[in-house]
C-alpha cells in the first residue's frame, strides 16, 4: 500500500493504492497525515486509539472515515498516523450498510509542526478496483 500527494490548484489531493480495500483506505489516511505535517513524525511517540465508522456506501465510508480522523485530530489534539484499517464489512439486509474498524497512533500536536487540513471533499473522489487491487483519489480542502 502506498500514497502520493498530487497537485491541485488550491488544495491537496491524495492518490493511494492497496491490495485490499482496507489497505487502500489506510494508505489514504496516511496521505492525509502527510499533507498535515512538515517532517516525518517521531516513531516512538503517541498511543494508538481505535476508530469505527458506518456508512451507506463505499465512497461514503471513505468520506466518513477521513472526516472522523479530522474530527478526532481536533478534539484529541493529536495527528493520527500509522493508520491501520482492520476490517471493512458490507451488510446487505435490505439497505446497503458498510462498517469500518480502524486504529491510528495519535501524535500530540504539541510535539510536531502540523498544519490544518480543513476537510475531506467528494470532489473528483474515486474508489476503484484496478487489476487485482484498489485505487483511491481524494481532494482535501486546506
Amino acid at each position, binding site marked *: 500500500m502506498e500514497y502520493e500527494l498530487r497537485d*491541485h490548484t*488550491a488544495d491537496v489531493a491524495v492518490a493511494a493504492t492497496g491490495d485490499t480495500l482496507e489497505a487502500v483506505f489506510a494508505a489514504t489516511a496516511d496521505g492525509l497525515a502527510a499533507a498535515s505535517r512538515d517532517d516525518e513524525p517521531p516513531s516512538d511517540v503517541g498511543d494508538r486509539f481505535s476508530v469505527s465508522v458506518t456508512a*451507506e456506501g463505499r465512497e461514503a465510508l471513505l468520506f*466518513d472515515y477521513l472526516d472522523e480522523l479530522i474530527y478526532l485530530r481536533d478534539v484529541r489534539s493529536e495527528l493520527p498516523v500509522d493508520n491501520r484499517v482492520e476490517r471493512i464489512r458490507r451488510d446487505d439486509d435490505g439497505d446497503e450498510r458498510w462498517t469500518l474498524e480502524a486504529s491510528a497512533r495519535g501524535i500530540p500536536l504539541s510535539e510536531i*509542526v*502540523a*498544519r*490544518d487540513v480543513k*476537510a475531506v471533499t467528494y470532489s473528483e473522489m474515486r474508489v476503484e478496483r484496478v487489476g487485482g487491487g484498489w485505487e483511491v483519489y481524494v481532494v482535501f*480542502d486546506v
Partner: protein
Amino acid sequence: MSDVTFDADDVTLERVSEFVWEIPREGEMRVPARVLASEALLEEIKEDKTLEQIRNTTHLPGITKYAICMPDGHQGYGFPVGGVGAMDAEDGCISPGSVGYDINCGVRMMRTNLTYDDLNGRERELVDSLFANVPSGLGGGGIVESGVDTVDEILARGVDWALENGHAVEDDLLHCEDEGMREEADPDAVSQKAKDRGKNQIGSLGSGNHFLEVQRVTDVFDDEIGEAFGLEEDQIVVLIHCGSRGLGHQTCNDYLRKIERQHKGLLDRLPDKELAAAPAGSQLAREYYGAMNAAINFAWVNRQLIMHRTRRVFERVFDRSWEEMEMELLYDVAHNIAKKEVHDVDGEQRELYVHRKGATRAFPAGHPEVPRAYRTVGQPVIIPGSMGAGSYVLRGGERSMDLTFGSTAHGAGRLMSRTQAKNEYWGGDVQDELEGQQGIYVKAQSGATVAEEAPGVYKDVDEVVRVSDALGIGDKVARTFPVCNIKG
C-alpha cells in the same frame, strides 16, 4: 454580443462586453455562465477546471440570470472559488458546497493612527509579540477556551457575546456586516461534533492562506472615499484573514452528508457531488441555513477576538492605549457565505439565496444593507493580496447589482498548486527574501506554509482589481503593503 470568442480547450467563451465573457446555455445548463476577466486572467483561469466548474454550477435548481466567475476565480470543489450563484429562495435551493467548508471565511481591517515611521525599527518586536499572542496553526488553542455552553452563546449572538464579555466595544458592531450577528442563526442545527471542534479554537487563525498582517497604506486612489474610510497614505492598518475553523468545516460536511442521504434524487441529477443542494423550503434547507448563520456568527467572533488581542499587543509594544492609537474596525467582509437577499431579476424583485464562494459582497452607495457609517459612499470591500504584494480596499461599485448580484473578487487567486510551490520554494528562503528585499517580517508555525503561500503562487492582484474597477463592481480606494505577517 460581439463575435469575439476565447477558446479554452473544450469551452468557447463569447465576449459580451469588455471583461465580460459568456459560456452560452446548452444541454442541462439552466442559465448561461459568465466569467469576468481580462484576456490575461482568462489565460490563467483556463489552465485548471474553473470553467468546467462554473458551467456545472448552472445546473443547480432555481439558479437565476447566470452563474458568475470573478476575475480571481480558480478551481475549487464543486463550485469554483471566485463563484457567485443566486438561487430562488422559494423554488430554488441552498448548497453547502457552494458556500465552502470554511463558512464566513473573511477579512477585516483595523485602522490605527500610527504611521510607518512609528513602526520603523520595531517590526521584529511587533511580529514576535503578535506571533506569541495570537494562536495559529494546528492545535494552537484559542484566545478563549471554554465549554459547549459558551459556543452555543457565540453561535446565537455573535459579536454581541464578545461585547458582553469584554472582547469588543460598541463601535466594533457598527462597523461589521449585520452588526456582527445573524438573526437567523440556529445553534441547535449545529452538531455536537462541530461544537466540540470549535470550543478550543475560539480566537485562532488556523493555517493555510489565513494570516494576520500589519500593513502600511501606500496609495489612496480616491481621496473622498479614502477619507470616509479613514485611510491616508503611510498610515498603519491591520488585516485579519480567517474563518469559522473546525466548527464551520464540520458543519459543511455534516450537511453535505445529510443532503446525500435525504435528497439523493436531486443529487444524482447534478454533475458534481460537491454541488449537493437542499431544495428551498425543505426541512434540511431551513436547518442548513440556521446552522450556516450560526457558523457565520462564530467566525465573526473569531476575527473579533483576534482583533481585540491585537489591540493589546500594540498597547504593550507602543506603550500607549489602543484608544489613543485609534485602533478602530474599518470593516469586516465575508467571502464564503450564502445570504437571503432581494435582487432584481428581469424587472422582478425576488428573494434569492446568493452564494458567494471566494467572492465578496460589494453593495453600492445608498443600498439599505450597507451599514449607516458607509451608506453614502458604498460598502468597503477588502481584497487581501499575497505576502509580497499589496492588498486593496475597494468600495461597492454602481454596476455590481446589475452584473454580479452585488459582488466582486476576494483576493489574488491561486496560480500554482501547493505541492508545486513546495518544490519551487523553501520557506526559509522566502522569509529571508521578503525581509531583506522588501522589509516584510514573516513569522509562521510551518515553513511549508510559507513556501505554499509564497508571492509567486498567486495571480496578479493588481490585474484582478483593475478588472473589478473597470467593470464598476468594486472601485479602487486604497492599496496597502505588508510590514509584518504571521500565519499558521
